[in-house]
């Protein structure tokens, strides 16, 4: 790093730290104000649902911010960067998500929740069907699948912080201390020290403000976070389009790109009088080919000791840039440093789909390293078009919000707002990170970090490093707004559906204590589980949301819209849906030797799981004990006579 680079990085780091610190101060002020609101109100109703009086802005922002999670700002950009424009087709279901995912059940859910006085989804199902078994099974499935979702957000939060604080002196000192302290500890010591420190800070802060302020704090911080996300995307879009030389240029360069190759190389240096450390991400230029200029990029840190001239088996990727791609070449060459090291005996392997195939980043099915079918075969595109709106409708974290809006005009206006908000978030994100392939090539070495890296790069290049703090706060806000909601949801289920059922006479003070400690416990457990996380965030997110969708979609829809639904059918539907999802992932693990779904006939397991759930419910309803007619009349009115049934 040159002196100028160091100055720039330090300025960006300090500015980011200040912006980030300010952001956290505001979050805690809002939590404190929310805590004051709790006085004089029913603790559980206020803590978990904000006393059911969310207005339009609060409901719309909290819904949008919770939905736009770490997946939207970390996992999604990583996938766009890795697979290109095919991600527009992957996310195409979002075109109709606001209408379907909110509209499908929100009105009925809110009404039934009010009639039954329910605070959580398992409680609503239990009261509507008059069955404790329904509530118990719902609680178990909700906590299980929601926990996977929570894990992914913790990883995302920590990853963002490592990038944000990377150049700050105090932070680097703290990382060294953490490394010394944790290195000898089994499991904990295996985690990278910077990631570990950030995970700890992230978990502590989000758990603290959630436990302190409850649902109202979550909603208020969601509003702020939603604003930051929207603003962040708009600024990023402007910066990226300016720096990439316009959209046409970016699309043309992208169409000439081919996927990188992955493998090992031998590094040789000409001078060995001193030791030499090559950072992860170091670029080395290779001899030119006729139409392509190859580069090698290090995937790990390499340390030459004094007198050592050769390093064998260094993990690298090989990026073969088209000689016509002026912007991309300029970007890479600006990062190539003359360190007296060359890459030899480069042994790399191409993607199974897309290797040496220009056009693969601007078309479907998109490149994929591990499958000859490409990233998104058409049947999988169909699956995702079903997945996003319907799995979205069945997320208990969204349902909690749908139980909290104050009236129907609030709902109607919120759907419109969320539709416009999502349009302004998701389409620009695809543009930003496809352009990112041109401006910042070679980030396949750590694709999950591409969002914060882009923010830092774009603001530094534009001479406004202080903006990095705001931009990186956008994904951080997305992660936080999801984590706080999930924490609240899980603790709500445990407190309301487990503890209070066992201890119906527990005092308000006891309930408060149990609520706070449950929130802290769930957060601590998620943090511990994420010390050594899997690579792709999106796999965890899709499993978590898919599992929740498969478990709750048909049971909740039929609970709200089918008077003849029986308790046994509901239990069977939840277990068969969630179970089918888990089985498909288990088969996927056995077949692919990694955490990924088994896609029967190229359809996502969510589709099969929902079908299984629906069929099982229909079959089980016949012959099982019907729901108490008084409950049917309470929630459906005099539907038997009015619909002309016997």
């Amino acid at each position: 790093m040159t002196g100028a680079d160091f100055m720039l990085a330090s300025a960006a780091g300090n500015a980011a730290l200040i912006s980030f610190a300010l952001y956290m101060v505001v979050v805690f002020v809002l939590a404190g104000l929310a805590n004051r609101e709790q006085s004089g109100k029913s603790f559980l109703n206020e803590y978990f649902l904000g006393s059911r009086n969310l207005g339009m802005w609060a409901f719309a922002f909290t819904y949008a911010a919770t939905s736009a999670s770490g997946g939207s700002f970390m996992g999604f950009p990583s996938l766009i960067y890795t697979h290109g424009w095919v991600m527009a087709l992957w996310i195409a279901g979002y075109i109709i998500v606001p209408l379907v995912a909110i509209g499908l059940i929100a009105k009925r859910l809110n009404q039934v929740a009010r009639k039954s006085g329910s605070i959580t989804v398992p409680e609503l199902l239990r009261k509507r069907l008059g069955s404790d078994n329904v509530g118990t099974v719902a609680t178990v499935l909700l906590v299980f699948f929601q926990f996977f979702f929570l894990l992914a957000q913790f990883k995302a939060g920590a990853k963002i912080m490592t990038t944000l604080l990377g150049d700050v002196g105090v932070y680097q000192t703290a990382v060294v201390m953490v490394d010394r302290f944790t290195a000898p500890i089994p499991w904990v010591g295996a985690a990278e020290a910077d990631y570990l420190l950030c995970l700890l800070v992230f978990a502590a802060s989000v758990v603290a403000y959630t436990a302190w302020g409850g649902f109202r704090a979550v909603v208020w911080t969601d509003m702020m976070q939603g604003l930051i996300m929207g603003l962040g995307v708009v600024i990023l879009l402007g910066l990226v389009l300016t720096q990439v030389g316009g959209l046409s240029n970016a699309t043309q360069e992208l169409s000439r790109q081919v996927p990188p190759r992955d493998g090992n190389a031998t590094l040789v240096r000409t001078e060995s009088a001193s030791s030499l450390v090559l950072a992860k991400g170091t670029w080395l230029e290779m001899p030119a080919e006729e139409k392509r200029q190859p580069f090698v990029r290090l995937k790990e840190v390499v340390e030459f000791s004094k007198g050592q001239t050769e390093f064998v088996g260094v993990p690298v990727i090989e990026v073969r840039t088209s000689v016509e791609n002026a912007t991309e070449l300029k970007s890479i060459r600006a990062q190539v440093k003359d360190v007296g090291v060359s890459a030899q005996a480069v042994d790399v392997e191409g993607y199974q789909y897309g290797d040496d195939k220009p056009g693969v980043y601007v078309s479907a099915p998109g490149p994929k390293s591990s499958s000859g079918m490409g990233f998104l075969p058409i049947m999988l595109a169909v699956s995702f078009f079903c997945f996003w709106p319907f799995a979205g409708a069945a997320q208990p974290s969204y349902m909690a919000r749908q139980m909290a809006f104050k009236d129907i005009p609030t709902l109607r206006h919120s759907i419109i707002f969320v539709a416009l908000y999502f349009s302004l978030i998701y389409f620009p994100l695809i543009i930003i990170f496809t352009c990112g392939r041109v401006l910042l090539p070679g980030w396949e070495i750590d694709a999950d970090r591409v969002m914060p890296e882009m923010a830092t790069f774009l603001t530094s290049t534009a001479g406004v490093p202080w903006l990095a703090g705001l931009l990186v706060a956008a994904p951080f806000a997305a992660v936080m707004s999801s984590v706080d909601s999930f924490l609240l949801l899980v603790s709500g289920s445990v407190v309301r559906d487990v503890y209070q059922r066992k201890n119906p006479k527990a005092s308000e003070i006891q309930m408060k204590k149990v609520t706070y400690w449950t929130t802290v416990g769930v957060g601590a457990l998620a943090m511990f589980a994420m010390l050594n996380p899997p690579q792709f965030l999106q796999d965890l997110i899709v499993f978590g949301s898919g599992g929740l969708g498969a478990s709750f979609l048909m049971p909740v829809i039929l609970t709200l819209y089918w008077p003849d639904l029986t308790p046994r059918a509901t239990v069977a539907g939840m277990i068969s849906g969630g179970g089918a999802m888990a089985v498909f992932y288990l088969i996927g693990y056995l077949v692919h030797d990694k955490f990924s779904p088994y896609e029967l006939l190229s359809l996502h397991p969510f589709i099969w799981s929902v079908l299984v759930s629906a069929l099982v419910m229909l079959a089980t309803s016949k012959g099982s004990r019907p729901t108490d007619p008084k409950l049917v009349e309470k929630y459906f009115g005099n539907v038997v006579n009015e619909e002309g049934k016997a």
Partner: protein
Amino acid sequence: MSKPSIRPDTGASYRQSKRELFVMIAAWAVTGLWVLGYNSQAAYAAETETPVRMLFGLPRWTVIGWLLPLLVANAFTIWFCLRFMRDEPMEVLPEDE
């Protein structure tokens, strides 16, 4: 959009919600036919196009098969929420157990 009745009518409210549900599912199906139907041809054929066919600086299939349906879906959503979805009176919240 009709005005809500003075007292909540659970049965009428349920039937109206069911009507809205069917319209939403129909809207989803039509959007799916457009996006997946068009892109099953255009997006998967774009790989062999040299140079890439563009519209407004974007790959052409993303504009016709993504951006345009997005705009139409948003227009429909606005109509649905302002004209078709009915207001209903909200139940008085019972005391928590």
